[in-house]
Each structure stands twice: as C-alpha cells, then as structure tokens.
C-alpha cells in the first residue's frame, strides 16, 4: 500500500511539474468537503485526486465533515469550496425545494436557489449514477408477505417493524409520500428512527430488530445479505444523481472551463453500478478510500 501511495504521489508530482511548465491559469488550493458516509467520501476523494492529477492542491479537511446541516453552511461561508451533493435530496431537504425524479429539473431548480447563496454556487454536471432512497426487507419477509413494491407494504404495515431515516417525520418525500401516495401512516406504525444509509440502519435489519429499513439503493449490504429492495411503484423518490457544487469565487480564480471539464469528465463515468462498486469496496471490502479512488481513476484513464 505504502509503495502504491508513494508512486501515486510521485505521479501527481510529475503531473504537477508538467502543468507548471505548460503554464495555464492559477491553481489555488481547493478545499473539498462531503457528508459523512462512505459513498459520498469516496466520490469526494475521486474529485480530489482528479484535480491533484491536474496540478491543483487539495485540502481534504472537509471530507466526511458531517450532515448537510454542517456542510451547507461551510460551503456558503467559503470554509469549503467544493462538495459532491445528491441533487434531489440536496434540493428538498437542504434548501426546501421540491425535487422530482427528473435529474435535469432537480439540477436547474437547485442552481436557481444556489445562485443567491454564499455569493453564488455552481452546480456542475451530474453523474449518470443515481442513489435513491430504498425500502428494503429481508428475503424471508418478502416471501412471507409476498412483497415486491412499496404499495404491497400498505396492507401489512401494522404487522411490520419499520426503521426510517431520522428526518422522515418532517420530510415530505418520506412520511409525506408514504402517507399520501401509499397510505402508510408513519404516526401509527411501529417505527424506529435511525440515520439514513448508516451501519445501525443496516444492522437493525440484519439482526431482526426491524423488518423494513430505509437504505441507499447503492448500499452494499443489500447485495451482501441478499435483501429485497422494494420498488417505489408510484415513483415518489427523487432522482439523487451526484453533482459537484463549487463556489463561484473559487471558479473565478481558476481556468473555469478547464476546471469544470476535469470534474464533468469524471462525473460522466460514474454510473450506478460503478457507484455501488465503489461503495462496496470501501464499506464491505474495508479498502482505503484513497486507494479505491486512485484505482478507479487509473482504470478509467484519468491518471497514469
């Protein structure tokens, strides 16, 4: 591992010198942040290494910083310059907008709000990959109650123990959608509130503490445990494609077109299976996030 890292460092230094000799715009340190869970951290690390390969210096102090509650003020106040964001959830739960399952519309709506935040923040291109809120049950529960869709849950809602995200009761996409579109009343079911996509959430389902859990659709635990992801048959959940948010004052200091191209080219290559694999390698494979990110960048020709 150490040798790979040393080589990676050497490689990025070479690129750095190369970049210096060819000239180009100024490349001030970019401060990157992300929310705390593995998937967001590995995507942030990929953006970081892609920028380093082009000669930028990266400050990683904000990667894994915490929930949107912490991260968005950090971005708006310039404590970080860039963060990968789930545009559907970011729009709905970060900025009080209404997200849909159309990523282009989510991006446009989020951009309109961010134009006025922190002196202007730009939403770059989003990944083809989507990570959607998923309701997941164990195989035996699916068989016992013949569950395939969220709609199937309505009839047996009282027989099941549920774990939903902690923000669910006040989130229109969660408690609101369950009640209005599916007739599932979160006020009357046996409900435990846990962190979305977290280890406790997956553990609760694994250990039988609950029968239905809200996980990220790319969550590796779903594959590993052969769980059943139920279909959101009414299409209530937003399209959560990932896009980098960058402060405009940072973009003004660099060669904007070249900077954006680096990130947009990377984002274009991250599809849903890729995202799930990256998440899997970190969360289940216990690989170092930096190693996973650099291996993927090499495999896709972004770095030598």
């Amino acid at each position, binding site marked *: 591992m150490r040798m790979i890292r040393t080589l990676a460092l050497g490689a990025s230094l070479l690129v750095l010198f190369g970049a210096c000799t060819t000239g180009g715009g100024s490349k001030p340190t970019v401060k990157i942040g992300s929310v705390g869970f593995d998937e967001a951290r590995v995507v942030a690390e990929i953006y970081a290494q892609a920028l380093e390969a082009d000669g930028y210096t990266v400050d990683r102090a904000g990667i894994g910083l915490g929930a949107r509650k912490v991260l968005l003020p950090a971005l708006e106040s310039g404590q970080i310059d860039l963060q990968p964001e789930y545009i559907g959830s970011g729009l709905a739960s970060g900025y009080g907008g209404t997200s849909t399952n159309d990523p282009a519309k989510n991006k446009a709506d989020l951009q309109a709000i961010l134009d006025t935040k922190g002196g202007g923040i730009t939403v770059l291109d989003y990944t083809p990959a989507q990570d959607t809120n998923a309701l997941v049950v164990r195989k035996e529960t699916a068989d016992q109650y013949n569950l395939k869709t969220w709609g199937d849950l309505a009839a047996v809602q009282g027989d099941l123990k549920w774990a939903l995200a*902690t923000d669910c009761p006040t989130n229109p996409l969660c408690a609101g959608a369950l009640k209005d579109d599916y007739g599932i009343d979160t006020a009357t079911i046996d409900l435990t509130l846990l962190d979305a996509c977290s280890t406790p959430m997956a553990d609760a389902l694994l250990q039988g503490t609950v029968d239905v859990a809200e996980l990220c659709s790319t969550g590796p635990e779903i594959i590993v445990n052969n769980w059943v992801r139920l279909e959101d048959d009414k299409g209530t959940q937003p399209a959560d494609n990932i896009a980098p948010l960058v402060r405009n004052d940072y973009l003004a200091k660099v060669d904007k077109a070249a900077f954006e191209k680096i990130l947009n080219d990377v984002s274009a290559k991250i599809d849903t299976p890729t995202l799930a694999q990256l998440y899997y390698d970190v969360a289940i494979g216990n690989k170092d996030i930096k190693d996973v990110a650099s291996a993927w960048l090499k495999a896709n020709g972004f770095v030598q």
Partner: protein
Amino acid sequence: MTLVSDTLTWLTDPANWTGPGAIPQRLIEHLGLSAIALAVALVIALPAGLAIGHTRRGSALAAVLANIGRSVPSLAVIGIVLPLTVMIDPQLGFKVYPTLVAMVVLAIPPILVNAEAGVVGVDPDLTEAARGTGMREVQVLAGIEIPVSLPVIVAGVRSGATQIVATMTLGAIFGGGGLGRYLVEGIAQNDDGKIFGGVVLVAALALATEAAFARLQRALVSPGLRAPGGDTAPVPGIAET
C-alpha cells in the same frame, strides 16, 4: 438571536408537552433507564469498593479496571456490546441494552474508587478503638467505616449518576428513547429549536441530578462529625473529592 427564540418557542410549544414523544414521556424514559443503570452500577461497584477499602486488598486491580472503564468511549462500548445483546433480544438488545451497558461501565469507576478511598481514609484510631471494644469486622465496616466515609461514597455516586444521565443521550443514535431523541432528530430534521431545546433539557437534568446528590451528600454527614453551627465539616483523615 433567532437561536434563542427558536429554542424558547420549541420549549414552550404545548404540542411538545403532551402525547407520544413529548417531553414528559422522554423525561420518564430518560430517568427510568438512568435509574436502572445506577442501580446496577451500585450493586456491582459498592460492595466491591467497600470490600477493597476494608481489606486493603485488590486496590491495584480495582484501579486498573476503573481506569479501563473511564478510558473507553461510551460510543465504543455501545458498538462492542451491540452484536452480543441483539442475540439476547432483537428489540431491547438493539435499542436499550447497549446504552445500559455503556452507562453502567461509565458509572462503576467513580462509585468503586470513592467507596474504596472513603473507607481507606477513615482515621485508623477510630477503627482500632472499635476493634478494641470487641467489634467484629462486619461491625467495624457497617458501624464505623461506612458512616464516617458516607459523604465520600455518595460523592462517587453523584459523579456516576451525572455521567449516566449525560451518556443516556447516546442511546438515541440506536433508536433508543430519552431526551437524546431531540438532539438526534433535531439535527436530522434541521430544526434548531428542537436541537437546543433538547440541549437545555439534558443540561438541566444533569445539573438537577448533580444538585440532588449534593444535597443528599450534605444530609448524610454523620451527626457526630458535624461541626457546631454548620452542617458540613472537613472529616479528619478523609480527602474530599
């Protein structure tokens, strides 16, 4: 300050004072589990501390165990015991037992160490005189050592109880009840009033616990040891903690 007004609005909203998940219910959950944790910690730590103090044996081992208990973070304790407790009960073993274990582990060291130190600190003239009058060892412990060192012993219980009340908030991360729910839910729901309302309640409860045990501690000074005119006096040979 919108933070102050948000917090006051949340604390004074009648909807937060009645019904499921309201403040009275969360307070009862918080106090109930804290009381159980304190009782378990007392059953384990008090006899052990008194025995070690009286016999002067095993104090090195006790100090090591107590230090381990103090140095392991509560969240780590929860993470370590959770896989074991869910095997006992998938419901309580996930939401309640891990936090209970963490609270007990954290409360044992101050109770044990103070019980030991209190008994060790009793003036040897007193215990020797007691033995000279023909008291048996159990009588020396029960009749002399415990009453004389009671304020020190209760100081340990007071410290343990305060830590229990504060640690209880962590249980909410694993779906447990108590006042910690307001912190965890407030952060996730982006509701400052709820977060800081919860903070105020938890802090007030910790201070109230501290104050209640401080009163108890003063009340338990043996009448024979009280200085004339005051209800507490430095007890000869006992180090205050």
